[in-house]
C-alpha cells in the first residue's frame, strides 16, 4: 500500500499530472522525464507512478505498444514498482462487457471469458485453457494497485503452497506462470457460490452445517498433513459446487510450516478479524499452527448456525480485541434451535487457548461425525472436570513464566541441597537452632542472588505480576524467620518446626498458583504431604522435599523454558 501523501504534496502531484495529460490531449508527445521536476521521496514515487500510468495509457491510445521493460530501463530506481503500476488490468470494475474485455490482460495460452471477482490481493478471471479446452479460474495480481514485492511474494507463496495439494475438497491449482512481469496461476473453476453468499440466504440446519464442516475439517486435516496452514478460512473462502460440495480456496495467507526461511511476517496481523484465532489476532506468528484453522472452522460453524460470526465489533480493531478478550456468546443465544452437542463442538473450537481446542482437524471431523450419528460428542463429555480444569488452568502469563523459568530451576537446586542438609541435621538429632538458621539464611541469599542475577539485575521488574511474585517471596522469608524465632522462644524442639516450614512453603506456592496457574498447586500439595510426613517422623518430610518437591519444581521451570 502506498503511504498517503500530505494534501499539499498530493496537490502538487495532481497539478503536474493535469499539465502532463493536457499536453497529451493536445496531441503533443511529452516525456515523463521532463515533468518530474525536483520532486523527491515518496512524492516523487507517487508522481512517477501517476505519470507512468498516464503515459502508458496515452501511448496505447496512439497505437503504440509500450513494454514494461522499456519503463524499467528508463526508471532503473523503480524497477520493482513498475510492474505494479503497469496497467495490464483495470482497477475499477468495468461497465459494459465489451469495455471490460478490452482491459483484460492477454495471457498466453488462455482466453479470458469473464471476471469472477476481485480481492485485496488480485483479480480472478474465468478463462479457457486453450490447449486442454477446459474452463479454469485465473488468478492474477491486481496490476496498477498498491502492490509491492511482499505482495508478489505472498501471491507466489499461495500458488506454491496450493500447488502441492490434491484433494477433492480443495480447489486444485494447475499452473503457475508470469505475464507482463506479473505472476498468475490457473486453478480449478468451481461453478456455484461460496458459503458467505449461501449463509446470507438462510441459516443452515444443524445437520447440514455439521456435514459441511466435517468435510471441510477432513480437507484441512489433509492440508495440515502437508504442513500447510490456511490461516484465512472464512465463509467467503469456502466455495460450494452446484452439487453442494465444499471446496476450500484462497490460500492467500497460507503458511508453509516446512519452510523456515523466515518468509512469515512476524507480528503482522493477517487474516479476517471475525474468523481469526486469538493467537493470530495478537500477531504471535510463531504460535499460529493448525489450531488456528480449527478455530476458524469453529467460527464458520458458528456463523452457519447463527447467521453472524462469533465476534463483530465496531471496526476491525475492536473485533480483534473481542477475539482476544471475550468469550463468545453461545450459539443458542442467537438460535435456540441449535443442538446443545453441536454448540459444544462449536465452542470447543473457539477456545482461546489452542490446547483447549480439538488437537487436530480430524478430531473435530470425528466429533462432528459422532454428532451426526446421534451419539454423545467428545466436546460435551466431562463438563465437571472441564470446569475444574478451567479454574486451575495455566494463566496467560506464559511469557513471564518463561522469563522466570531459569530462576525456578535454580531455586529447585537450592531447595534440594538445603533439604538434604536439614534432613541430615534432623537425622543426627541436632537440637541447636543455629545450624538451621544458617541453612535458611544460605538458602535465602542463594535464592535472592539467583533472582538478582537472572532477572532483577537489568532494572526493577516491569510487569505487575513480577512484582507480585517478588512480594509474595519477601513475605515468605520474613514470615519464616519471625515464626521460627517465636517457636524457638516457646522452647519447642527444632524438629517440630519443620512441618511449619513446609506449611508456610505450601501457602507461598498456593499464592503463586493463584496468580500463575494450576501447576503450582501441585507444588503446594507436595509441601503439605511433606508436612504430614515430618509430623510422623522428624526429617522424613524434609527428605521428601529433597527428592520429590524440589525435582517437581525443577521440572516446572524446565517445562516453561520450553514453552
Amino acid at each position: 500500500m502506498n503511504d498517503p501523501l500530505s494534501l499539499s504534496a498530493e496537490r502538487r502531484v495532481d497539478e503536474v499530472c493535469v499539465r502532463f495529460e493536457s499536453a497529451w490531449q493536445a496531441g503533443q508527445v511529452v516525456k515523463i522525464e521532463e515533468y518530474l521536476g525536483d520532486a523527491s521521496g515518496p512524492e516523487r514515487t507517487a508522481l512517477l507512478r501517476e505519470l507512468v500510468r498516464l503515459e502508458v495509457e496515452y501511448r496505447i491510445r496512439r497505437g503504440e505498444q509500450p513494454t514494461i521493460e522499456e519503463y524499467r530501463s528508463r526508471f532503473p530506481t523503480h524497477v520493482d514498482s513498475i510492474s505494479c503500476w503497469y496497467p495490464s488490468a483495470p482497477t475499477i470494475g468495468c461497465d459494459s462487457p465489451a469495455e471490460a474485455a478490452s482491459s483484460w490482460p492477454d495471457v498466453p495460452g488462455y482466453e479470458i471469458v469473464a471476471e469472477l471477482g476481485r480481492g485485496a490481493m488480485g483479480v480472478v478471471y474465468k478463462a479457457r485453457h486453450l490447449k486442454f479446452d477446459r474452463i479454469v479460474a485465473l488468478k492474477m495480481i491486481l496490476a496498477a494497485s498498491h502492490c509491492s514485492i511482499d505482495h508478489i511474494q505472498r501471491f507466489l507463496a499461495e500458488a506454491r503452497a496450493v500447488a502441492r495439494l490434491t484433494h477433492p475438497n480443495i480447489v486444485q491449482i494447475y499452473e503457475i506462470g508470469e505475464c507482463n512481469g506479473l505472476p498468475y496461476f490457473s486453478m480449478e473453476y468451481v461453478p456455484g457460490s461460496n458459503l458467505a453468499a449461501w449463509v446470507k440466504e438462510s441459516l443452515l440446519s444443524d445437520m447440514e452445517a455439521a456435514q459441511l464442516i466435517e468435510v471441510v475439517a477432513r480437507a484441512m486435516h489433509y492440508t495440515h498433513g502437508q504442513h500447510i496452514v490456511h490461516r484465512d478460512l472464512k465463509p467467503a473462502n469456502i466455495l460450494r459446487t452446484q452439487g453442494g460440495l465444499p471446496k476450500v480456496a484462497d490460500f492467500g495467507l497460507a503458511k508453509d510450516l516446512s519452510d523456515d526461511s523466515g518468509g512469515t511476517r512476524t507480528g503482522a496481523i493477517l487474516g479476517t478479524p471475525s474468523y481469526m484465532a486469538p493467537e493470530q489476532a495478537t500477531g504471535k506468528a510463531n504460535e499460529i499452527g493448525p489450531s488456528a484453522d480449527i478455530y476458524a472452522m469453529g467460527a464458520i460453524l458458528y456463523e452457519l448456525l447463527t447467521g453472524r460470526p462469533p465476534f463483530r465489533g465496531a471496526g476491525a480493531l475492536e473485533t480483534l480485541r473481542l477475539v482476544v478478550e471475550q468469550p463468545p456468546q453461545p450459539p443458542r443465544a442467537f438460535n435456540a434451535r441449535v443442538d446443545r452437542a453441536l454448540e459444544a463442538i462449536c465452542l470447543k473450537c473457539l477456545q482461546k487457548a489452542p490446547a483447549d481446542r480439538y488437537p487436530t482437524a480430524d478430531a473435530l471431523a470425528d466429533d462432528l461425525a459422532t454428532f451426526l450419528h446421534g451419539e454423545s460428542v467428545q466436546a460435551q463429555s466431562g463438563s465437571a472436570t472441564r470446569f475444574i480444569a478451567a479454574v486451575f488452568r495455566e494463566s496467560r502469563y506464559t511469557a513471564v513464566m518463561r522469563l522466570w523459568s531459569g530462576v525456578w530451576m535454580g531455586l529447585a537446586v537450592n531447595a534440594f541441597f538445603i533439604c538434604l542438609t536439614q534432613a541430615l541435621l534432623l537425622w543426627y538429632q541436632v537440637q541447636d537452632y543455629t545450624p538451621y538458621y544458617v541453612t535458611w539464611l544460605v538458602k535465602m541469599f542463594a535464592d535472592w542472588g539467583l533472582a538478582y542475577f537472572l532477572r532483577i539485575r537489568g532494572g526493577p521488574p516491569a510487569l505487575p505480576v513480577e512484582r507480585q511474585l517478588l512480594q509474595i517471596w519477601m513475605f515468605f522469608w520474613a514470615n519464616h524467620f519471625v515464626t521460627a524465632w517465636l517457636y524457638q522462644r516457646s522452647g519447642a524442639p527444632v524438629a517440630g518446626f519443620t512441618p511449619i516450614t513446609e506449611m508456610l512453603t505450601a501457602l507461598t506456592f498456593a499464592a503463586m498458583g493463584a496468580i500463575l496457574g494450576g501447576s503450582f498447586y501441585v507444588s503446594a500439595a507436595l509441601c503439605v504431604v511433606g508436612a504430614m510426613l515430618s509430623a510422623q517422623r522428624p526429617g522424613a518430610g524434609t527428605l521428601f522435599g529433597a527428592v520429590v518437591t524440589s525435582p517437581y519444581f525443577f521440572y516446572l521451570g524446565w517445562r516453561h523454558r520450553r514453552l
Partner: protein
Amino acid sequence: MSDAASVTIWIDQLRAGDSRAAQKLWEGYFHRLVSLARGKLRSMPRRGADEEDVALSAFDSFFRGVEQGRFPQLDDRDDLWQILLMITERKAFDLLEHEGRQKRDWRRNQSTDASSGKLVLAGREPDPAFAAQVAEECEKLLTKLADANLRLIAVRKMEGYTNNEIAKELGCSLVTIERRLRLIRLEWEGRDSD
C-alpha cells in the same frame, strides 16, 4: 450491533462485516437521510452562487438513483457520501462537545450517548437536524474544491456514476479520475502535515 451506533461506527462495522442485511439497513437509513437533506437544501435561501445548485443537482440526481435502488456500496473506498457523513458527524460531535464545555449539561442532551459521549442515531431513523447538517456540509465541501473540474468529478461520483463513466464524460484517463478522487478526499478531510 447496538441501536445506538454513530454513523462512522456503523459504516466501519458494515465494512468489516459482510452481512447483506446490514447493507439493507444502511440503504433504508440512507434513503431517508438523502431525502431529508434534499428537502432541506431546496428550502435554503439561494445565494446566487452556483455551488448550491451543484450540490442540489448531486442530491437530486443521486436521489433518483436511490429510488431506483442504486446505493453507495460500503466497500467502495472512493465513495464520497460516506466521507461526507463522517465529516458531518465529526463536526456535529465537536460542536456538541464544544457546547458541552460551555454549558456543562450536554450529557443531558438526549442525542448524545452519555457513556461514550458520542453522537448517536435514534434507532435507524435519520435525525432531520443531522440531515440538514449533511446538506450544509455538502455545499461547504463542494465550495472547498477550487477547481471546477474537481467539483464536477465529485458531483458525478456522488450522483452514482462509475469512475469509468466519469472518465469518458470528461474525456480523460481513468487514472486521472482515481487520482483526483483521492485529492478530493484529502481536500475534504483537510489532512495536511506540511
